[in-house]
């Protein structure tokens, strides 16, 4: 199946492109004439605006209802292809999709709309003297570290009745088009408001052509990739960016006393195994109170083993494997010279647990490296994160009572945009203000009626 999606109204044909991973190749097309696309999106936008927001929510929910079944044919094909290109196991991708798709049901969508806008109906017209208007066209440049991730921003844009030009990620190009094909079966007006295609990072001409037809831009990716897009964004563009982020976990003694080291280890293992630890939401390190750090780490080895059995880690190429093996050997060397350090690891590279008492020089995560760094108290844990404040995103905070509230506030001040329980780090809900901003509200412009005799009826 094609990894691009062209609306029914788009001209047949286009510039073909091929994305490959090992022996596998996937094809798609890119528009030839962006002026035609711009005009088509304008028409599609008029159609889209006529759809009530609740109808859009219902259509997305209906698509997700189909996709929620793991044996749904389009989902199976997508998962199989995503496994080939990302190297992740099908179970890991299925779990990622379960989590992402679960966010797109009616209830969480309405909750997100209500939290951001007060009343979702403001998107359909004046309610209580106010209305919210989304952009005409959102250009969304996606990254592929998490399968299914494009759904979040794609749906947010459609909820505010914006048409979308989506650049699918080379590292996971299948989901977007497949999702849109199902959406077309359920509600063609929605799917026909989206163009999903691909262009190379250095293809500035296509980026500029797409930008020329957008009034909002959403960029996912590394700092460099985002900077390249940001440099081309004009003052008339609304801009949303999801660049490099780092996430951590903190567990204090009281939390371990309450839940027990085995349960805490289970939670940490889930956080470090989901998405093979490639999400920006995944923890780089868990800073654990020194009283329990070793016990948690010991249990963690068993918990990581169980995770690997139930949701096998993906295959990794020689380069990533070298990085991982090197990290392990560096950790083993450190452990050989320090009683406060220890390494537990699978025979192969499936999982690694490292206990240490310093955040550096041991560094790095990804591909299921669970690092426990022992700290004397929560304040020391927060201090250890301080140098990374600029990129701080998500904290799994295993702290109880008043200290939880105090620490959460401190983390918020430091730069975190999400605090959750250990074990829930990768399961960000649709209501979360993604990277610290209300992402639905961020896409709309408001119009208020005031000081007008007609206000009562508006």
């Amino acid at each position: 199946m094609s990894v691009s999606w062209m609306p029914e109204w788009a001209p047949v044909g286009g510039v073909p492109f091929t994305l490959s991973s090992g022996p596998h190749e996937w094809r798609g097309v890119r528009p030839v004439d962006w002026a035609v696309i711009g005009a088509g999106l304008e028409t599609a936008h008029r159609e889209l605006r006529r759809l009530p927001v609740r109808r859009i929510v219902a259509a997305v929910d209906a698509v997700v209802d189909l996709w929620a079944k793991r044996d749904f044919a389009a989902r199976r094909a997508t998962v199989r292809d995503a496994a080939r290109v990302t190297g992740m196991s099908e179970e890991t991708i299925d779990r990622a999709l379960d989590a992402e798709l679960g966010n797109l049901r009616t209830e969480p969508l309405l909750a997100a709309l209500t939290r951001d806008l007060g009343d979702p109906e403001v998107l359909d017209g004046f309610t209580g003297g106010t209305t919210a208007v989304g952009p005409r066209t959102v250009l969304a440049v996606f990254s592929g570290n998490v399968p299914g991730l494009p759904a979040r921003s794609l749906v947010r844009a459609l909820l505010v009745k914006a048409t979308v030009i989506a650049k699918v990620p080379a590292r996971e190009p299948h989901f977007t088009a497949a999702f849109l094909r199902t959406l077309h079966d359920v509600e063609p007006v929605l799917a026909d408001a989206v163009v999903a295609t691909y262009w190379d990072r250095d293809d500035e001409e296509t980026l500029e052509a797409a930008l020329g037809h957008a009034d909002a831009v959403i960029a996912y990716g590394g700092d460099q990739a985002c900077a390249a897009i940001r440099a081309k964004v004009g003052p008339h563009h609304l801009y949303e960016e999801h660049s490099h982020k780092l996430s951590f976990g903190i567990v204090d003694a009281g939390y371990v006393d309450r839940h027990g080291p085995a349960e805490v280890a289970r939670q940490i293992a889930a956080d470090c195994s989901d998405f093979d630890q490639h999400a920006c939401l995944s923890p780089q390190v868990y800073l654990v109170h020194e009283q329990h750090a070793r016990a948690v780490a010991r249990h963690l080895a068993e918990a990581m083993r169980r995770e690997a059995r139930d949701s096998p880690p993906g295959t990794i190429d020689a380069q990533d494997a070298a990085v991982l093996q090197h990290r392990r050997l560096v950790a083993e060397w450190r452990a050989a010279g320090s009683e406060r350090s220890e390494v537990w690891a699978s025979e192969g590279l499936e999982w690694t647990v490292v206990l240490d008492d310093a955040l550096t020089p041991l560094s790095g995560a990804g591909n299921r490296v669970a690092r426990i760094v022992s700290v004397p108290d929560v304040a020391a844990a927060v201090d250890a994160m301080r140098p990374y404040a600029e990129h701080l995103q998500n904290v799994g905070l295993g702290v109880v009572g008043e200290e939880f509230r105090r620490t959460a506030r401190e983390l918020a001040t430091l730069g975190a945009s999400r605090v959750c329980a250990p074990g829930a780090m990768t399961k960000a809900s649709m209501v979360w203000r993604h990277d610290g901003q209300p992402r639905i509200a961020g896409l709309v412009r408001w119009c208020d009626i005031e000081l007008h005799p007609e206000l009562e009826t508006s």
Partner: protein
Amino acid sequence: MTVAHDDPHVARLFDRMAQLVSEGVGDPRDVQEELVELAIANSPDVARYWKQVGVGVGVPDTAYKDGGPHLFPDAPAVRVFRTSGTTGSGRGTVRYSALGLELKRLAIEAQARRHLRPDDGVRPVVLPFVPSEEAAPEMAIAFDMGRVARSCGDPELSTAVVGPNGVDFDLLARRLDTAVAEGLPVVLIGATFAFVNICDALEAQGKSWRLPPGSRLFDGGGFKGRSRVMRVDELRAAVRRVFGIERHANIFGMTELANQLFDSADTPVGPLGERPKGSHPAGGPKVRDPHTREYLTEGTGLLEITDLSLLDRPHVLLTGDLGIAVPEGVAIAGRVAGGASRGCSLTLDEMTGGAE
């Protein structure tokens, strides 16, 4: 039980290592076995490390950032070299005992004789682009190049051409002019990146030479940590334009090691066209399978170097580089580093400049 530096066993081991290193006489497997026993006896850290990961697995270069394992803490250090610190968190140190430094000298000179001496026995003008040993006593490469120049070079004309203010272009030009006038082959040795700058500078000045036949260039260090990289053949083309040198090779050395490795074949293997490095009687490069830690005969993995001229430290080092094993040897293909980031996900490696 710890073996003291003045133990007769160590003296005997030194003799056997010296023979192997200098003349290629002896069984490297026996020496290796003894060095393993010595490391286990004298370094509890190495013993514990090998118990965990397998006997003989290279000690990571990061170990030397914290001082590293030194097998003879009882022996006075006659020399201390500092690591470059270009690859991460600060500079480390390596210490040499008298016997250890003597082995290093023998190893460097033996390798230089194998690779630098022209076939006709004429001593070339050796011009290392490093400071002299006197000017930089803590720089291992300055020590090495001093030995290379002394053992292989024309005694009158060979000299370090880097002074306190960088490359001494006047001195360089004088020596090259003399070599051309006298028909003496020249050996230029220096950091890879230095040659990029030197060629740029000389081309800008409009200077070039046609150095006599038998002249060679050896570069080392590659482009790690540099913003600009150049393919091997591009650099060679620049060197050909400026110096008229046709014979090139790359040297791999690290402060943590005693000996150096030289290209064994002129086949491009690495991503920038890096040539494979070969083994010598007293060691050489190998590649560990990143999945199993077994040795690979072909493919990409962790570069491990065996150096049987190392007496003061474990004789196997994981350099932190990627190695590509081919039948002719092992190409060194850049730092392992922190791996490519994916999308918005960042790793601490990238934040801290690599797992160093």
